[in-house]
């Protein structure tokens, strides 16, 4: 590879947004790292800034789904913010228990929001493997409520 080719290779890698690359052919080795150049490197930070030394006070709400993802990715999630109830009223039996088979469209719990009892229907079929929220606890939008296995 001559110098012109090398230059073109480097230019292409840069255009492709590559941060660092090594090219080896025979005993020839090229290692390039693009250090900055204004902003050649898109400093993509998917994660938020790391917390400052003293993190804000602990959040009493349960962590959202991603903190404890359903092992096989199948979960019934809360469609709204509110308070989670496993049964339609304090005296009534719970909608579902661990081991129960659940069908798509079946009511599995209630999430109360603004004094309204919203019935939550499962959007998947499966067997209840774990109940992830305690009765009468607050839940956020999108929070995992039940983990299901294909059973």
């Amino acid at each position: 590879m001559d110098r012109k080719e090398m230059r073109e290779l480097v230019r292409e890698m840069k255009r492709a947004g590559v941060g660092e690359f090594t090219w080896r052919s025979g005993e020839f080795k090229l290692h390039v790292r693009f250090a900055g150049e204004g902003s050649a490197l898109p400093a993509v930070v998917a994660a938020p800034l790391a917390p400052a030394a003293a993190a804000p006070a602990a959040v009493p709400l349960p962590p959202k789904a991603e903190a404890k993802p359903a092992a096989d990715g199948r979960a019934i999630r809360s469609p709204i913010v509110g308070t989670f109830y496993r049964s339609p009223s304090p005296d009534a039996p719970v909608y579902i228990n661990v081991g129960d088979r659940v069908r798509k469209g079946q009511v599995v719990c209630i999430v109360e929001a603004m004094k309204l009892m919203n019935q939550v229907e499962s959007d998947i079929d499966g067997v209840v493997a774990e109940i992830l929220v305690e009765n009468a606890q607050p839940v956020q939008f999108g929070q995992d409520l039940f983990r299901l296995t294909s059973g």
Partner: protein
Amino acid sequence: MFRKILIANRGEIAMRVIRACRELGIRTVAVYSECDRHALHVRFADESVCIGPPQARQSYLNIPAVISAADITRADAIHPGYGFLAENATFAEAVNAHGMTFVGPSPEHLRQFGDKLSAKAAARAAGLPLLPGSHGAVDNLDECVEVARLVGFPLMLKAAAGGGGKGMRVVEDEDQLRKVFAVTSAEAVAAFGSGAVFLERFLRTPRHVEVQFAGDRFGAAVHVGERDCSMQRRHQKIIEEAPAPNLAEGLRDRIRSAAARLVASTGYVTVGTCEFLVQDDEFFFLEVNPRIQVEHPVTELVTGIDLVQLQIRLAAGEPMPFAQSEVRLRGHAIEVRVNAEDPWKFTPSPGRVTGYHAPGGPGIRIDSAIHEGAMVQPYYDSLAAKLVAYAPDRESAIRKLLGAMDEYVVEGIRTSLPLQKLLLADPAFSAVTFHTRFIDEWLRSRPG
């Protein structure tokens, strides 16, 4: 005083409220949509609740979701910020119905000032000057033409339920009026749910001057000085300053006391703004913004009063902590809104902020929701940060702001700063010969 406030907003204003609460010793709850999970307000609030998907209708505008989030976190008040639900009387009522306090005026005041016609009626009752025009909605074309002949052309046809520069049309003569009347009314129905329109005299080169005011539950009504917000592009403010420079002799006092009079006569509680158009030595009532405004920092800098803390105190039922005579202005402050947009075409420029460095030093204030690696979302408005300069006089403030804008680095997205740099350096800005259509004309006259 409140124990815990839920902030029904995002971006820099959510950060602003968090900071105010922290100083008042009040805990905070942030709400966020799925795409805002890593936003600064979520990180710095004491608690946070995800309330829905990115679309504002399903999250930040979703009243049941916001109220439920306040419910489950046991917040005792909700601060609406600006935009979203801030002027929604139904929301304020729902907040009250759930035993919490809405940090803003009563639902009745939101309704009164949300409708331009009832707002004008309140202003007229308080003796504020109005633009000549129809004293209410005009029902049909004939009535409209009749009023128009009395008011004279050019005039402005406005949707009663409009706001923020939307639902308005300039009409140059009777022919045009006949052509656009039905269209404007139909558009108003589509945009605001009400087809009511009214007429007003159209001013060619007015300045936009607004007075910050505050009222408490015990009848105190004060003004906190005025701002000039004439630098608008397509009716959107992009540069604001306090105090308003070069007002005609005596005009400043007349404008300020007019606003205070309106607060007193309506019994408004918490903070708000009364907007006026100023032409030469006349001023005319425009509308009331019953909430904290984007540009409130310029007033804070010249008065030393924390308006958001004041708003919270007044909402909690505390009496006004100062008398009108104690409101003293010192120096001059100018704010530029750092919008994530193309500086010339105003098209939004959402995306990842790949490089960020904010200016600093004496007299520089930054209210920002962004940082290196932050995502400017395409779902919400384009305000990414506010840069404010404070100096002993207007000329120094302009110089300071120009220097700070040169120091400001925002990479990965486009911002409005290049436009604002040219505007601030323009002789018309120093000489205060601008008006509300200055930028639009200035842009048209630019070569290329």
